[in-house]
């Protein structure tokens, strides 16, 4: 039954910007301060107060627009969206309606679950957030306006997605981009990256779209997937039973895993949008756009491709290392110091990621800096230490912050590559294990591993494994 329907999804994402101050006043945007402590006449909507646009918000919008292949409008206008609600101090939200700052962008998404495809971005506009209502038991409702007037970008996609998997892939990529750009902290729990999903279904082959439901309260990727899957099933069932989908807003209930109609809110709001007479039209010059473009960081997709094509990394390594900007920066700082990308990649993906996860520290706070790690890799490649000893050195540096050379010297970990010294150990091992020697010489060549292990043990792991192999062969053969 399901296969006879096609799912259509369009997403509206609210990206809360990390500017130090609000979009139309100088108040701080810091999260979690005491209620109404970060307010002024402007964000309280006091009579006579006027908005002044924060230039940094425009910069963030242009960055995001460029990173999502949008056209940046040379002329855009702010509009008032009028509605009454206690968390909206002015009785209108300043947003953009006609002529938003970015239009006609796209993102390419790909996954193992579906063929690579391009998702259109209709528009990106700037707007102010509303405050928060706190419903206290026995104390009525309280209004906290700290969040009022914090800057948001609303990124509106085309209805181009055909499954929850595609929606998630698009969202993850957008999330990665805004975090990479540094315009958003990406924290979904705190609401810094919020998504509403417009979901409809239609019989396969039908050209016009089905009636959509707008899903809200989707504050994790997992919930988004659950909500979409539930909603698609609900709509199909409804249609199959002869019912009709109503255009409405539905809240996702994460505990029950269902979406529920938001009753009580008027269905068809007339927001009476009109250009805000308190703000001049925003003019963005070619020069301004060029300035922002020049300062754009390399984006995750570009990095991933460069890692594959120029550094010769496998696709998997390239994807992992480019996924988050701080990790990519760590990796790149390492490669600059030690020009063996694959070895660097192995160590970053192995020891470094393992250790920071285990110790629950951010990559930026990793005590084994790229410089210190490069010191280890250098000693691996010049055969001063083995890969195994290197892990010991890594742990020691994590604890002490000393350099690899200091740790190796202090603890006497330098690999023994001196043939004479190794020959002495080998002679001892051969003397101590006559039975195994006899068996080996009798043709049981598998025992080579045993001898290598014994030598490594005697040398406390410092013996150069390659040399040990070579010398052992010679010694074991000599006596025949």
């Amino acid at each position, binding site marked *: 039954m399901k296969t006879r329907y096609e799912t259509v999804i369009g997403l509206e994402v609210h990206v809360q910007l990390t500017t130090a101050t609000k979009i139309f006043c100088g108040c701080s945007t810091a999260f979690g301060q005491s209620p109404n402590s970060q307010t002024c*006449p402007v964000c*309280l*909507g*006091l*009579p*006579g*107060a*006027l*908005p*002044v*646009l924060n230039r940094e918000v425009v910069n963030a919008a242009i960055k995001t627009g460029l990173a999502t292949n949008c056209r940046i409008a040379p002329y855009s206008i702010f509009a*008032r969206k*009028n509605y*009454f609600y*206690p968390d909206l*101090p*002015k*009785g*209108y939200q300043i947003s953009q309606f006609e002529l938003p700052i970015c239009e006609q962008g796209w993102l390419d998404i790909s996954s193992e679950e579906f063929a690579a495809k391009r998702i259109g971005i209709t528009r990106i506009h700037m707007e102010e957030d509303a405050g928060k209502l706190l419903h206290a038991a026995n104390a009525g409702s309280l*209004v906290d306006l700290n969040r009022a007037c914090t800057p948001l970008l609303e990124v509106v996609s085309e209805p181009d997605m055909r499954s929850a998997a595609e929606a998630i892939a698009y969202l993850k990529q957008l999330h990665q981009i805004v975090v990479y750009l540094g315009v958003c902290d990406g924290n979904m729990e705190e609401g810094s990256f919020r998504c509403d999903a417009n979901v409809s279904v239609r019989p396969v082959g039908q050209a016009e779209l089905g009636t959509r439901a707008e899903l809200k309260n989707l504050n994790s990727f997992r919930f988004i997937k659950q909500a979409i899957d539930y909603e698609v099933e609900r709509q199909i069932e409804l249609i199959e039973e002869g019912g009709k989908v109503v255009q409405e807003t539905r809240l996702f209930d994460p505990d029950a895993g269902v979406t529920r109609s938001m009753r009580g809110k008027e269905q068809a709001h*007339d927001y*009476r*949008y*009109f250009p805000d*007479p*308190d*703000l*001049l039209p925003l003019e963005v010059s070619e020069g301004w756009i060029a300035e922002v473009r020049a300062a754009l960081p390399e984006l995750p997709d570009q990095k991933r491709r460069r890692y594959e094509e120029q550094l010769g990394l496998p696709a998997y390594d390239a994807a992992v290392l480019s996924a988050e900007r701080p990790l990519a920066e760590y990796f790149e700082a390492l490669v600059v110091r030690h020009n063996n990308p694959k070895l660097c990649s192995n160590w970053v993906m192995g020891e470094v990621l393992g250790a920071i996860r285990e110790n629950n520290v951010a990559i930026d706070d990793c005590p084994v800096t790229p410089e210190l790690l490069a010191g280890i890799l250098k000693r691996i490649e010049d055969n001063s230490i083995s890969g195994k000893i290197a892990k010991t050195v890594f742990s020691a540096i994590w604890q002490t912050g000393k350099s690899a050379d200091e740790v190796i010297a202090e603890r006497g970990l330098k690999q023994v590559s001196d043939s004479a010294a190794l020959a002495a150990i080998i002679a001892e091992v051969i003397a101590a294990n006559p039975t195994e020697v006899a068996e080996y010489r009798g043709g049981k060549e598998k025992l080579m591993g045993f001898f290598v292990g014994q030598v490594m043990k005697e040398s406390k792991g410092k013996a150069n494994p390659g040399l040990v192999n070579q010398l052992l062969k010679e010694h074991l053969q000599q006596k025949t």
Partner: protein
Amino acid sequence: MSVLQLTISGLREELQAQRTSAVAVTRRCIERIDNTDDQLNTFVSRCDDSAFQDATAADVRLSAGKAATLTGIPLGLKDIFSTKGLRTTCGSKILANYVPVYDATVVERLREQGAVIVGKLNMDEFAMGSSNESSAAGVCRNPWDTNHVPGGSSGGSAVAVAAGQVVAALGTDTGGSIRQPAAHCGVVGLKPTYGRVSRYGVIAYASSLDQVGPITRTVEDCALLLEAIAGYDPCDSTSVDCPVPDYQASLRDGVAGKKIGLPQEYFIAGLDPAVKAAVDAAVEVYRGLGAELVPVSLPHTDYSVACYYLIATAEASSNLARYDGVRFGVRHCTGGGLIDMYQQTRSAGFGAEVKRRIMLGTYALSSGYYDAYYLKAQKVRTLIRQDFLKAFEQVDLLLTPVAPTAAFKIGEKMDDPLQMYLSDIFTIPANLAGTCAMSIPCGFDAAGLPIGLQLIGKPFGEEEMLQAAWAFEQATDWHTCRPTL
């Protein structure tokens, strides 16, 4: 000198020469208010104590020789300006208890100069009205005949200046709210070019039209007070960053050789004969001063009132949404839910005219009507602005009546909003065009009520406009006439 004749320019000399003190002048104004306010109902809020504190501080500054132009000058403020710690009602019941936590930029500028703020002046509710009759504080009365309205919406400001309660005052003008009451009260009132003066802290009626301006007894005072409040304000995105001229310095440059346009659309059948006679006489005064008077046309004038009542009400419907009883002002809530609180608060808090305009504006912006009303009005506005710009290619200034009649009787037009709206027919176009305009006294009608002459200048042409006004004032003595009260 009578308190009625005090001017900023005259008083400034007296104060700086220490022939009088700010405290003494302030006391004279407050006595005058005590003696006349029962008849006039000019003040919504008074602040005698802080006025004397301001005056004392001004005297310290004066004796230290650090006085600015306005140091020690008693001024009144329309009750639309946010004044920190001083109740600001905007003529509405809904703000009966509202005490701002900040000063409007213009108030800050007056304070920096050391002006003495005497109190807050009566006005039409939210500046919506042409007669001061829509004020929650009750009508303010015309000092020339207390049965007549003072005009509006800055009625209290014009009355306070005309009646000698303050030396000068600030008002706001959205469709004529400075010029029309100034004309009706026989004083000088100037609406600057949109963007010339900061609107920050001025309670908004129609944001794209509102401008702050002075109401004074003389043109020179008008120049002084304008210079004190004009200039770019980073807190108002619509204020314009262009230098403020020394208006007073060039006042005496005269009008010889200037071209003054007489827009034919303003000399219409409905014009009161006394007003027409006074304006015609003013034209002759200018001819005598060496100006060239030429007929011009502003062809879209007829659409001004309709255009204004769509744009102004649309903006007002949104600007007044914040009066919801949630955060400040008077809340009415006899139970029920959120919607009930909104309805009760706004039903009880707003007067009839404000409700009428909120409804008109809401309608004009509604889905399905937006294009036919609001958008069309914006297009018409552009045409009206172009009318002016074209006219200013031919002439330096325009000369018109301020209002079709002198002040009408209290109650005369309250039942007929359309008639009331038409009293702003000559003042509205300058707001729509965004250009500067002013009213100066030019005569009296048979009943002894003052008549005003309107000069309309080019955008940011205040300097030239003030020169022409000053020349007229020098050639006539209408500005010296004071009501007997």
